[in-house]
């Protein structure tokens, strides 16, 4: 079939011209699109495959000495505002008091094993904890609990975000796209663990990224690097080598998550956690 069979020279030329114009238009559209997208997003280094990893952090509560170096290192590494109130990770001290003398026995039965629980975290634990928050004779038990983003599989913060700025990456980290975040702080309210804040500098939501810029380059997160007692265990669940500290920890310890009743499926596992910890 010949479309030009009955066409005059003028008609044929104009048809060809239109095809050429169409191709040129397509070409410019491609370039304009690339330019616009180049302004919206930046290209970055290659060589890291997010689908090949599953990063996780675990906490050994029994090893934490409450030095607060992790919280301090986190602030330095991630340029978190120095003021108290802005933390991506912090350390809490739990003090469980002895029950009061009268509360112990009622109608001849022992009714209370423990007294009131006091929790404090002065400046997130940066600078340490004074030993005298509660007089020693009144203390039944006391311990430190490091806190961070719980890397929930069903993260409430992710579901609350109205603009798709926060998400769970293929390598298991919940991140906030600072170019998309509008700073509405719905996610701050949604997080049941209090792990997010609105940065007074960028006015976007910020949170623990597991030091994404470090772990993608073969380094440990700053808090894990700095922890002097090995209370924080970090590794790749997809790394099957026997030397993987995370796998060893999972095999040898009895684990628990924070607020499991909320159904958020946290992926930060704690060993040695007391039921009093929220």
């Amino acid at each position, binding site marked *: 079939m010949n479309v030009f069979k009955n066409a005059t020279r003028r008609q044929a030329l104009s048809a060809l011209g239109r095809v050429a114009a169409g191709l040129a238009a397509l070409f410019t559209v491609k370039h304009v699109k690339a330019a616009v997208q180049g302004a919206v997003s930046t290209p970055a280094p290659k060589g890291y495959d997010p689908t090949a990893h599953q990063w996780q952090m675990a906490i050994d509560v029994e090893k934490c000495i409450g030095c607060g170096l992790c919280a301090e290192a986190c602030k330095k590494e991630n340029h978190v505002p120095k003021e108290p109130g802005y933390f991506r990770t912090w350390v809490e001290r739990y003090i469980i008091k002895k029950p009061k003398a009268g509360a112990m026995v009622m109608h001849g039965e022992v009714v209370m094993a423990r007294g009131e629980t006091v929790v404090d975290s002065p400046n997130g634990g940066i600078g340490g904890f004074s030993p005298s928050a509660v007089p020693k004779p009144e203390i039944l038990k006391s*311990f430190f609990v490091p806190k961070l983003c719980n890397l929930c599989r069903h993260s409430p913060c992710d579901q609350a975000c109205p603009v798709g700025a926060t998400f769970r990456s293929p390598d298991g980290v919940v991140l906030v796209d600072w*170019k998309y975040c509008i700073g509405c702080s719905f996610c701050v309210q949604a997080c049941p663990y209090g792990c997010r804040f609105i940065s007074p500098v960028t006015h976007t939501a910020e949170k623990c990224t597991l030091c994404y810029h470090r772990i993608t380059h073969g380094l440990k997160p700053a808090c894990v690097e700095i922890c002097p007692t090995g209370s924080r265990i970090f590794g790749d669940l997809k790394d099957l080598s026997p030397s993987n500290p995370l796998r060893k920890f999972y095999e040898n310890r009895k684990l628990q998550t924070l607020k499991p009743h909320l159904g958020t499926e946290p992926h930060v596992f704690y060993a040695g956690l007391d039921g009093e910890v929220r």
Partner: protein
Amino acid sequence: MSQPKLPPQLTRLLLVTVAIVAVYFAARHFLVPPSFGQYGWYRADFLKEAAALPTTYAGAAACAECHDKVVAKFAKSKHKGVACEACHGAQGAHADDPAIKPAKITDGLFCVRCHAANPARPEKFPQVNVAEHNAGTKCGECHSPHHPTEGL
């Protein structure tokens, strides 16, 4: 038989509707980044941007590249497992350019931070009552931080 003709007001409405829909799709085409939806309902390129941030802490492996002697001594001490930067502070700048010298640690604040007695610390962890344990003496006079039990 004449063809049924659309009233002009409807034709205009139809054209405006088509134009609005076309503008919407054109805007979407240009504004949605190509990596959106690669892994999920977000911009996959953000992962690369987050990974490209600069680091502040160099990591113990970087220290061992030059300071191998003190690292070897340290590895035999009770302090093994403690990162260099836990006491010496963030040394990413020093690791990148050794001409940038880290500040010397002259006080015992770092010792106390971990080793001052506190009822919340694990019982097995070595702790001292700072007021009683050789008060007035600097920690460094008896303990070398790189090998705390050496010479005791």
